[in-house]
């Protein structure tokens, strides 16, 4: 797959057509507006738009679908930061520091940094997409059952080690998340588990009800418990939205590290933006000189999460375009969009229609630029949401969240599930049990189980996880993370005990 400048210019020319640019702007705007609403995902936005693209040229259609994807992923950060409600699963890590920043009156800064981080994440992964697509696809081909299971175990151990005040609390919530993912029909063999006698649980709990419940409904409960007054929330000054160049320069390492993490995670099928954001967040925390500030409103956490979750876009497109394997549900729909227009993803696409491929690349870049301009422009008007009195806002938000969740499957049961997980999240947080490991466990549980079981079914044992170099490396890193965390907590406890004795 050679690099032909003539084809590159042809792809650029396709995207720079006035009609395509209009579609890019409208597509990004639409994606952002969908991404902002909890329960409405980027997947839904892209799926709804496919029929509208039937009569469009292939390059315009794909440009539109790709930028809706970009807008949808980015839009989720707005409500995650302002009202602790992730608009999309990919923005779940953003709220860990984004919402505390809003509470400190720095919501504008959080949004501005999140938007710029989204732009950088998309651009970084776009650069990887353009240059490294063939090489990265070859590396991912080496991932088999052992490697997938090992990388998921590594991700879980990393997040458990970093979040929460103790390792045990993180492990407990991670295990609960893994366990919650086992409810319903098993993905491996289609057998039913833990249906509790009701057919409503055959599909499990659902990702969005769990997410919205754990983070948004639990937060609503906390706000309601505080005692609501009719006076407006004290967020009179959001502060500066646009990050300064100095701020951007100071976080270059964070952008680059998170962008690389997100791109590589995005390559792995079915892992997606949420785990990438959480892993990047935990990496930023461990690399930080002030890790104790994470979770309390530090912009580095927002930057790490948003850069990584947007970087998965390019990563997912790498494997989708080069091999035809969807990196996440949205790229599965994008592949469908390509096929509707008579284009087969894979090496043939690069050989026969390279201008379409480069058109998609440039759509990603222009889409991220449009996303940044739109979100920075709309940040302050949108931030007014938090000035609405909380006794008005909370029931409204619940209705919007409930309607969004209901819209997924037209089931009241999903909304009820959301409320139940809200109660669970509230209890966890009051007892200082972190929620991030729960979500990661819920997302990665099926992957770990599926890959281990398929490995054992094929080989008769799971020793490959220790003997294959890539999986062994990830497991060693996982053990190192856990060991370092135990050491760190023991050291902290010894220091506290020594201070106590000294008194």
């Amino acid at each position, binding site marked *: 797959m050679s690099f032909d400048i003539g084809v590159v210019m042809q792809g650029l020319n396709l995207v720079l057509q006035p009609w395509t640019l209009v579609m890019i702007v409208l597509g990004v705007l639409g994606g952002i507006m969908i991404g902002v609403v909890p329960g409405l995902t980027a997947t839904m936005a892209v799926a709804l738009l496919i029929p509208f693209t039937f009569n469009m040229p292939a390059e315009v259609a794909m440009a539109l679908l790709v930028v809706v994807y970009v807008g949808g992923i980015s839009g989720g950060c707005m409500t995650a930061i302002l009202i602790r409600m992730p608009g999309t699963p990919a923005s779940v890590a953003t709220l860990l520091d984004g919402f505390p920043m809003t509470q400190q009156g720095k919501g504008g800064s959080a949004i501005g940094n999140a938007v710029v981080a989204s732009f950088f994440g998309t651009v970084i992964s776009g650069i990887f997409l353009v240059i490294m697509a063939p090489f990265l696809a070859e590396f991912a081909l080496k991932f088999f059952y052992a490697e997938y299971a090992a990388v998921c175990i590594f991700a879980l151990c990393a997040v458990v080690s970093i979040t929460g005040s103790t390792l045990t609390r993180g492990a407990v919530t991670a295990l609960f998340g893994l*366990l919650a993912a086992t409810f319903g029909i098993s993905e491996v063999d289609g057998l039913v588990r833990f249906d509790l006698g009701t057919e409503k649980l055959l599909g499990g709990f659902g990702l969005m009800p769990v997410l919205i419940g754990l983070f948004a409904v639990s937060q609503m*409960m*906390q706000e309601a418990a505080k005692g609501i007054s*009719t006076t407006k929330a004290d967020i009179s000054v959001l502060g500066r939205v646009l990050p300064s160049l100095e701020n951007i320069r100071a976080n270059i390492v964070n952008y680059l590290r998170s962008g690389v993490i997100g791109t590589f995670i995005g390559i792995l099928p079915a892992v997606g933006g949420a785990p990438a954001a959480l892993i990047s967040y935990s990496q930023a925390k461990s690399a930080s000189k002030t890790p104790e500030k994470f979770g309390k409103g530090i912009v580095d956490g927002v930057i790490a999460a948003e850069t990584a979750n947007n970087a998965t876009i390019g990563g997912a497109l790498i494997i989708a375009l080069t091999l035809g394997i969807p990196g996440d549900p949205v790229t599965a729909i994008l592949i469908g969009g390509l096929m509707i227009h008579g284009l087969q993803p894979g090496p043939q696409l690069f050989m026969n229609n390279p201008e379409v491929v480069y058109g998609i690349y440039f759509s990603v870049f222009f889409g991220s630029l449009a996303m940044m301009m739109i979100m920075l422009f709309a940040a302050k008007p949108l931030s007014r949401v938090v000035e609405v*009195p909380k*006794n008005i806002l909370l029931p409204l938000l619940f209705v919007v969240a409930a309607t969004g969740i209901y819209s997924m499957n037209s089931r009241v049961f999903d909304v009820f599930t959301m409320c139940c997980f809200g109660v669970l999240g509230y209890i966890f947080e009051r007892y200082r049990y972190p929620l991030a490991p729960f979500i990661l466990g819920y997302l990665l549980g099926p992957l770990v189980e599926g890959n281990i079981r398929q490995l054992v079914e094929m080989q008769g044992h799971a020793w490959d996880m220790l003997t294959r170099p890539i999986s062994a490396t990830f497991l060693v890193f996982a053990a190192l993370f856990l060991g370092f965390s135990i050491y760190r907590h023991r050291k902290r406890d010894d220091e506290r005990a020594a201070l106590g004795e000294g008194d």
Partner: protein
Amino acid sequence: MPQDRKFGILILAICVPLFIETLYFPTRMYVPLGVAFWPRLLLGFLAGCGVFLVIRGSLDAGPFDRLNPKAFIAVGIAMVYVVLLDAIGYLLLTPVFLFVGSCILAGKIDRKQIVTATIVAVLGTGITYLVFHDGLYVQLPEGLLY
């Protein structure tokens, strides 16, 4: 009793019935790791954590935030709304929920509060209905209006 020990007992109370449930999972022949393998492994680890919490008692110093009954009352009202949604319908029940929820959360009720709550209830329902039902073609529960 320390909070973490209470949590440990709760974890064990959850693990035991779920483990018993795994004994009734369907099975397939000639499968090395059946459908119960993974849940049992997780329940084993979770029970281990539960035992650790019971023995250890408290993981770190410092008081815990208490569970506030107001939080459960708020979510209870929301759950009543959810349970009645299918029977009564979105257009009829949502404005009632918004109005009641807003007034209860406000604490004190005066004329201005009632007027604001009414306007928000009607507008909020109307806008969300238009966006989801007419814009996104989502069939919302019709309930008594059907």
